């Protein structure tokens, strides 16, 4: 499978509907400090099933901290939604989804209602999303998702913790 598009709406600082096309090869993302680059990475990890608010840099509010919390001009939202479009032209998806050309995974969170996942429009459990990405050798905590500060974290971690990282990738 190939990752082809990320759609974001109301997630962290991306209050307006935003689409990021992920083309083949190397796609660069640039911009000043604090403009929202790492939020994009978190949107991708979130739709792939990240279930720890701490790993999403959440504060006291738990996972609801990912919902746009307002600025001087705009009021806070109650809903955040991210969807990821996968191209299955190579027919390499797990059996349950392998019939389709495209697989759309989406996740929505509403204040006080928790989050729900959908795959191709059908409501599924978090586990189903985890399984889908595990079978395609990726996921929110894959070693290929190198968040900001991760390189320094590996340097400063104790050897026992580094072995755990190796085990996760096995």
């Amino acid at each position, binding site marked *: *499978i*190939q*990752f082809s598009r990320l759609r974001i709406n109301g997630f*962290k*600082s*991306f*209050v*307006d509907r*935003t*689409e*990021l096309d*992920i*083309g*083949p*090869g*190397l*796609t*660069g*993302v*640039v*911009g*000043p*400090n604090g*403009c*929202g*680059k*790492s*939020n*994009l*990475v978190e949107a*991708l990890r979130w739709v792939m099933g990240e279930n720890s608010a701490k790993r999403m840099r959440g504060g006291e509010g738990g996972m609801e901290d990912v919902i746009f919390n307002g*600025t*001087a*001009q*705009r009021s806070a939202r109650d809903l955040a939604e991210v969807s990821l479009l996968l191209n299955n032209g190579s027919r390499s998806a797990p059996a349950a989804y392998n019939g389709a050309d495209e697989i759309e995974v989406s996740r929505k969170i509403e204040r006080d209602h928790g989050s729900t996942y959908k795959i191709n429009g059908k409501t599924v459990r978090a586990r189903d999303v985890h399984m889908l990405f595990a079978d*395609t*050798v*990726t996921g929110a905590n*894959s*070693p*290929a*998702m*190198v*968040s*900001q500060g*991760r*390189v*320094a974290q*590996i*340097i400063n971690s*104790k*050897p*026992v913790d*580094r*072995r755990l*990282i*190796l*085990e996760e*990738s*096995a």
Partner: protein
Amino acid sequence: ARDRLKAAFDHVNTHFQRLFTQLFGGGKAHLALIDADDPLGAGLEIYAQPPGKTLQSLSLLSGGEQALASISLIFAMFLTNPSPICVLDEIDAPLDDANVDRVCNLLEEIAARGETRFLVITHHRMTMARMNRLYGVTMAERGVSQLVSVDLQQSFEFLEAA
């Protein structure tokens, strides 16, 4: 579980040794399971010998050398189990130009196989220049992120301005 870890360790170590020499432009390095006979309780240590220097553990290298050794380990794990997407958030911050160049060479080499797409977040001009396409994230309206597609021929000056 023990056998799986041992097999993963061997794969990753093989990739790591090759990648280290490629990214450092020489020298050699290896991984070791230390502090316990049972791999499941052991620690993973990195022993590195940058070109022309003596072999030492990770903590005695310079800031940039440690980062490059850690990047070698990350890609050794990646190559052991290639993934369709790889996201790198400012991994080039502590690197000098020569090392940025070698990391970009590695990304191009992996991307050329066609199985993996990369999202690379960076402030480094050299890295920007090696991308196939660029997105700029701006906060024209304070606190609100907006994504704009950037023409690669444009100058990079405006990208970093607040």
